[in-house]
């Protein structure tokens, strides 16, 4: 037995590879994989090359400077404020979007009557089809004035937390507002993927739980959520990827400044993508290299986040669909 199994496998492989369709498909997929790696390497190489050009002429520390003036004499630029703004706004977005997305996905997949579930799913899909500049316009014209009330409330009752202490009067063009806007923007992708995962939960699990006398909430807690956990994490990472790189909506809503402030309700801060969009037009060649250097940092942050997500999912193999 032990000797025959590999033989059978080898035969099977030989047989399948001999079919032209299989060979073409395998070649295509291998080619695609290699192409992807080459593209990623090319992007990384380009970013690194241009970034080194810029950083070698930077007169201050690239990581701790709170200023952006690569056209100055001497050139000064740093990414501290941008990294902070990018991470903070994304964290706010995730904190809001993930629970809401899970809620919507559960409602659509397990609670809503069929007639309501479908239109609701379409509406959530639609949110993904809206271009980000429209979110930006909506955010700047509608959301910002309407968040003033919430900001005052947070300032009054949660001001002691420091982060909700609003030190500066003025409209809510802050990282907090950006976080809320990003949350709305990443909602559909998280909801969609999560919903798909929830629908994949084996019916037998749920029926077994029901048969044991579990309520609907207990079914969700005991079979749906554990089964969907890795899916939820993947979906969240997809959303986070969008939040980290969002450009136009942030550029329109935020009142950027190179000032690092923990007061999230105050106008100010900045993100990598927003800064690139804002500075690119008038930048000279060296300024563009500097922006590309900041882009490299965003690239690295994104890689780290995705790596971390894969690691978390990998650790929880027992919950993944393959094991069920």
């Amino acid at each position, binding site marked *: 037995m032990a000797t025959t199994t590999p033989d059978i496998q080898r035969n099977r492989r030989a047989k399948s590879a001999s079919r032209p369709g299989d060979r073409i498909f395998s070649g295509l997929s291998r080619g695609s994989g290699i192409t992807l790696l080459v593209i990623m390497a090319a992007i990384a190489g380009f970013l690194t090359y241009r970034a080194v050009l810029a950083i070698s002429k930077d007169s201050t520390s690239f990581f701790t400077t709170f200023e952006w003036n690569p056209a100055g004499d001497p050139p000064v630029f740093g990414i501290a404020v941008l990294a902070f703004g990018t991470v903070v706004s994304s964290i706010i977005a995730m904190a809001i979007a993930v629970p809401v997305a899970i809620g919507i996905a559960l409602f659509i997949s397990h609670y809503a009557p069929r007639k309501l579930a479908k239109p609701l799913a379409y509406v959530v899909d639609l949110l993904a089809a809206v271009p980000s500049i429209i979110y930006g316009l909506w955010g700047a014209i509608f959301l910002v004035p309407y968040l003033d009330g919430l900001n005052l409330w947070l300032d009054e009752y949660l001001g002691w937390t420091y982060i909700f202490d609003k030190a500066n009067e003025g409209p809510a063009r802050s990282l907090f507002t950006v976080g809320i806007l990003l949350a709305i923007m990443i909602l559909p992708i998280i909801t969609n993927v999560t919903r798909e995962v929830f629908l994949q939960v084996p019916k037998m699990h749920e029926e077994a739980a029901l048969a044991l006398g579990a309520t609907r909430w207990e079914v969700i807690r005991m079979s749906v959520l554990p089964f969907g956990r890795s899916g939820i994490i993947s979906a969240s990472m997809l959303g986070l990827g969008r939040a980290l790189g969002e450009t136009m909506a942030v*550029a329109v809503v935020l*009142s950027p*400044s190179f*000032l690092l402030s923990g007061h999230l309700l105050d*106008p100010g801060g900045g993100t990598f993508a927003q800064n690139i969009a*804002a500075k690119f037009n*008038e930048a000279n060649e060296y300024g563009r290299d500097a922006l590309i250097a900041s882009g490299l940092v965003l690239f690295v942050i994104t890689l780290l986040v995705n790596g971390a997500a894969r690691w978390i999912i990998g650790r929880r193999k027992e919950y993944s669909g393959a094991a069920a």
Partner: protein
Amino acid sequence: MKLSRKNGLRASAIGALVVSGALVLSACGSDNNTETPAKEGGKATTSAAASNIACEGAKGQLLAAGSSAQKNAMDLWVKNFQAACSGVEINYQSIGSGGGITKFNQGQVAFAGSDSALKDEEVAESQKICKTGKGVNLPMVGGPIAIGYKLDGVDNLVLDASTIAKIFDNKITKWNDPAIAKLNPGAKLPDSTIQAFHRSDESGTTQNLGKYLSTAAAADWKHDPKSKSWPAQGGQAANGSSGVATAVKDSEGSIGYFELSYATANKISTVSIATGAAAPVAATTDNASKAIAAAKIKGTGNDMALSLDYATKAEGAYPIVLVTYEIACDKGNKAETLPTLKAFLNYAVSEEGQKVLAEADYAPLPAEIAAKVRAIVPTLS
């Protein structure tokens, strides 16, 4: 599964169509605001100007790119010029001065619009494209940079350079600060926080304001005067002149800077500057022309780079001004676009071309400078 996904796609497509349709419509709506003066200007002058435009063999397509500060002026000129000379198409992309110069030095455009004169290294680079010559700066459009504010009950705010510097540097944070009160006796200044708005993008407008502040209020503005990005800390920012104008219009107790046309289009009150002249100077195109007249030419030969006198105390000269240049080769322009280039620049700097400007809130060039540019344009080769 498959079916529902298809439906989802279709629904998304319809939704996207509706939303983008709405955007297109609303975009048109908001455009009208800023372009109104330009359109009116165009209508009023097309017929009069058309007869005086010399086409001189202009034909085909002329590509240009650069400063967005002169976009509305360029739109007017292009419209009038194209109406007068059939078969000519001029395409000016307002991608910013930096982008314009880059494109010019790569030989992609016949001329570039720029808010600041070419730097030495940019001139050196232009010699590759111009072959026998080099890039020269030809001043074409001037404009006042207005300090706009919104403060209920205060109609004629007067500030001087030092106060403006302190406001934008967050050293003066209340409207009833003694420094402001002293300049505005009798005005009811509220005890509210000043919300100072600046540009979040890099801009020649920011650079010119910086040059003004560091010349006229050197003690209070210690930042890099040549910085195109906002050099000070704090305050609030918005994208583009239109963004700053909208922000100022929307927030009580705000102040910001932008080209005069944005103040007119958004009905924003503008600050008069106490320059040391007998009376505070309002931001008008005439007053800006007077300040530009005091400029010295620092370029040599055919280069007309100007050095503005920001600390001017001349009567009625509004000191915060921006001069935008057209940059072309003095020799070695491309043969196929040269006639069109010359004819167009000729029109732009002609009396008719300059007269049109005031209607879009730009300042015409002072007579002396205009005369010099008029002499240079025909010598381009």
